[in-house]
């Protein structure tokens, strides 16, 4: 089992093997994809950025401390890549692909499924309507559960900016959700 631990896979990748890195990608691609999807709101772009995240992570693997968990590090890279991507492509205030909103289990009643799907779509859409930096702090705070200080380091912005972005993002989201309900 030790052979398949993150640490072991990263160490083998650092030694030049690519196959273990493929295992890491398979293990965590879903998690990284969801970071990108929440940030971008578009599954196709989220897939591309997920791929880019793993390529970027591989190129920076030398600076990665193997004793730390791999996925939080990869997810932070994903957030930064998405942030850059959004800033480069200013079109990123777009509606979500309804077809892709199929997250709810089939065991529930059709009404409940529809209602949940709508709520999820609505929340994702509201997040995607936020400015890029607001999205990033929301992602890091609420979905990756980082502290203010950790967010500040991850995004390389002052702590005061983290607080004000979070404050404004939440205020905006709360207002929009309350009008939706």
């Amino acid at each position, binding site marked *: 089992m030790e052979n398949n631990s993150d640490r072991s896979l990263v160490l083998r990748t650092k030694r030049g093997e690519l196959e273990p890195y493929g295992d890491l990608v398979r293990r965590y691609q879903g998690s990284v994809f969801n970071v990108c*999807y929440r940030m971008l709101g578009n599954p196709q772009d989220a*897939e591309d950025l997920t791929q880019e995240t793993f390529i970027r992570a591989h190129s920076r693997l030398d600076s990665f401390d193997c004793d730390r968990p791999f996925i939080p590090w990869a997810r932070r890279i994903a957030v930064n890549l998405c942030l850059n991507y959004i800033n480069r492509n200013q079109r990123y205030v777009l509606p979500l692909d309804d077809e892709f909103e199929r997250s709810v289990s089939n065991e529930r009643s059709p009404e409940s499924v529809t209602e949940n799907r709508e709520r999820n779509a609505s929340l994702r859409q509201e997040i995607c309507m936020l400015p890029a930096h607001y999205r990033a702090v929301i992602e890091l705070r609420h979905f990756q559960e980082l502290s203010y200080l950790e967010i500040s380091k991850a995004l390389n912005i002052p702590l005061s900016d983290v*607080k004000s972005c979070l404050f404004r993002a939440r*205020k905006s989201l709360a207002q929009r959700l309350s009008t939706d309900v």
Partner: protein
Amino acid sequence: MSKDRKYHLDEWSLQEYLDEVFADEDRERLETHLAECDLCVAKVHSLKFLYSEMKRLPDEPLANDLSARVIRSLTLKEDRKPYLQRILAAQLAAAVIMFLAIWPRISLELENRYSLVQLIEPLRKFADLTAQGTLIVSEFLNWIQAQLTATFSMPGIDWPFTGLPLVLVISAMILFWLLGNGLLLRESANGIHQ
């Protein structure tokens, strides 16, 4: 419970309260206020609702396995590494050769305008002046002022007439450099998009 209060908690404090970044003392003060103020409690509930909505947002399934694409990109990148190193080495060698090729022209231009003695003269003066102590500082400043006010001109390139060959060599260097960097950038883009 008093419903009508003269002041209310600001939203910033409420958010920090929910983030649990308050000191115990501030937390207690805030909770005391919440115990008496329906309006602030409603604000907290609104924020809590937002937090819980985000918490329950489910992960989306990934439609495609990306591992093969990632590995293919990395393999392509690995394959190109020796090729890139050769380009960089060629760039460096070409730059050195071209610099050596144009150096006679540059040195000629420098020599025409300044002798070596003239070039190191300011340094010599500086060393002399600093050795003489603080009294000399004012002289030194005067000297700098004199140097600054004197007409100063860099060795000129008399293009496009007499310095044309020089311009051509420099242009060729720039072109070669840009082409090399273009290849590097293309490599990076290929690594990203499969």
